[in-house]
């Protein structure tokens, strides 16, 4: 018989190696699907690797894709720290995209437009996140379910906009009007799509780490998540912490949408997010809810997503493999996390 036994301490190397182990396990498990699809496993992963990180252009493409997942990953990581189960980053991202696009279409100086887009987009995301938080605080509504249901509501609202008032009368396509050229985020490297929003995302991660690890609000968030009773006893208003966490989390998810509008698509369409909100959950868990870990985790998932498309073209393995890898990585990581708190001990063999 084997038994799980509580660990008294966790070796330091173990904490760092954990996400890597989870990723390797996910890749190994998913290689079965590549084989089923009739392609060489080494070839397929080789194509994925070279298409996502093989040259400087590939790297910029991966970074561009990582940016929204850094934001949604931070949004989820901070929310989960307070045990505010925000599964609504997808809807908050869409709200941020729509709001920033609306601002971006107004002619004004570029720097002002970008600043306003970020502010309004973040505010829109925050506002959406406030709904499940308020419902939980005031009506005890389960935040998981309400934030999930809100995703659908926001999505249909977006569709109503781009098939209604925003519909392109000229082409008839359901897409929003483009933002002003002056509001397009500056590109950092000519010939690539590496825009300024990627840098903002990379800066946001250490800022969020500072917030969580070194500020009073961060302390309150952590205590509320770990032990709400103790938080209450210590004079922390759990309700207020939950609401502030929601605002912060939603704003970060909203910024993911701002970056996609200002730096990548310059308008809003129905598939502006291929599920970045849900990927944020995977990112946050791989990062073990540490904002600094969000960056490498997001880059890994972005590389898988970018690489999967190239792999699909080269080998015919459906690109949906990247979704399976994401799900498997999340589950593998959860199991791996178990071993930080427990170890497997053989029992009953000698007794």
């Amino acid at each position, binding site marked *: 018989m084997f*038994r*799980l036994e*509580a660990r008294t301490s966790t070796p330091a190397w173990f904490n760092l190696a954990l996400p890597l182990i989870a990723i390797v396990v996910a890749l190994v498990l998913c290689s079965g*699907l590549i084989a*089923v*699809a009739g392609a060489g496993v080494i070839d397929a992963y080789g194509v994925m690797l070279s298409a996502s990180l093989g040259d400087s252009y590939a790297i910029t493409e991966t970074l561009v894709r990582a940016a929204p997942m850094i934001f949604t990953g931070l949004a989820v990581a901070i929310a989960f720290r307070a045990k505010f*189960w925000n*599964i609504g980053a997808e809807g908050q991202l869409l709200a941020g995209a729509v709001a920033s696009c609306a601002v971006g279409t107004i002619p004004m100086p570029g720097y002002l437009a970008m600043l306003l887009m970020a502010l309004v987009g973040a505010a829109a995301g925050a506002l959406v996140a406030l709904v499940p938080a308020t*419902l939980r605080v005031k*009506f*005890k*509504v*389960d935040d*998981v*379910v*309400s934030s*999930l*249901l*809100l*995703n*659908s*509501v926001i999505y*249909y*609202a977006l*569709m*109503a906009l781009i*098939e*209604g008032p925003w519909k392109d009368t000229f082409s008839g396509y359901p897409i929003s009007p483009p933002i002003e050229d002056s509001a397009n985020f500056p590109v950092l490297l000519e010939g690539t799509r590496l825009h300024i929003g990627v840098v903002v995302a990379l800066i946001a991660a250490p800022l969020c780490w500072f917030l969580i690890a070194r500020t009073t609000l961060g302390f309150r968030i952590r205590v509320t998540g770990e032990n709400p009773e103790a938080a209450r006893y210590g004079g922390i208003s759990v309700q207020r912490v939950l609401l502030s966490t929601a605002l912060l989390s939603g704003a970060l998810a909203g910024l993911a949408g701002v970056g996609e509008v200002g730096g990548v698509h310059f308008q809003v369409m129905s598939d502006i997010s291929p599920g970045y909100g*849900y990927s944020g*959950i*995977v990112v946050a*868990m791989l990062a073990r809810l540490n904002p600094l870990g969000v960056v490498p985790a997001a880059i890994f998932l972005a590389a898988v997503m970018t690489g999967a498309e190239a792999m699909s073209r080269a080998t015919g393995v*459906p690109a*949906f*493999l*990247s*979704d*399976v*890898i*994401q*799900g*498997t990585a*999340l*589950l593998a990581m*959860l*199991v791996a*996390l*178990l071993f930080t708190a427990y170890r497997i001990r053989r029992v009953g063999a000698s007794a």
Partner: protein
Amino acid sequence: MSAMFEQIFQVGFLAAIIRIATPLAFATIGEMFSERAGVLNLGIEGIMLLSAMAGFTAASLGGSLWLGVLVAVLVGALMGALHALFTVALGLSQHVCGIGVTLFSSGLAYFLYRLIFGQQSVPPSIEGFKPVPIPLLSDIPVLGPAVFNQFTLVYLAILAIPLAAFVLYRTPWGLSVRMVGENPRAADSAGVSVITTRFQAVILGGALMGLAGAFLTMAQFNAFTFGVVSGRGWVAIALVVFGRWDPWRSAGAALLFAFVDALQLRMQASGLGHVPYEAFLMLPFIFTIIAMAFMSRNAVAPSALLKPFRREER
């Protein structure tokens, strides 16, 4: 107003409500069994999708609809077992594992579907289930053709409600399920295996979610499309809360939701003013959120819900 009543009591409208409610009833009762045993299954959306895909594939390649249903149920049960493995055996976070199961199974569903059917401009379809009129009962005016001239799976759903209530409240196993969901320690002391019972309940729940998926691709749409489940799983989770973890109330909640959904479809079709159709699509979700706000305050969830059970840790 009277025109609206006439609309509502039309045969077609009643039949539509029943058809919309059927997959929701299966999914809601499935989720209810799982939660009654103390396990929230957020994998429901993905489990329904993977089952819908697997059932459709089996039916279209194997040529038999009932084979498709069987495969969908087995796949649902299997995914339920996976969720139970993570949450019951290993005691991991039910929230995050559920999302993981959903991400994994929807990714797998899309991956395998694309692998088997390739990329086609028009999704392949199958000859789905045909309505089977029940003699005599189907002759009852209005109610007969709406309720008793339906797919066999609809009758199965109608039967599932009293059956679920009987199993939950009147059988020893149902008692065990309720015990491990309310007070696993006491259940353990009474000699009920918490782990085994929870596994069984989550697997049964998964099988019912599989039936829900099967209904979507083999009776309602007769094809697998990427939006075929489109939030029905999440709605089912809300309906469990709304139905206060009771089979009858949960089924009632599914009917109520189906009524709102059928109403929005009717309003869409009648081209009510210049309201965009998305506003109607949103309606059931907004309705569910508001309904939850009203219900959640007094809702009493199984007290061990979300709490892992480890025998050694007392």
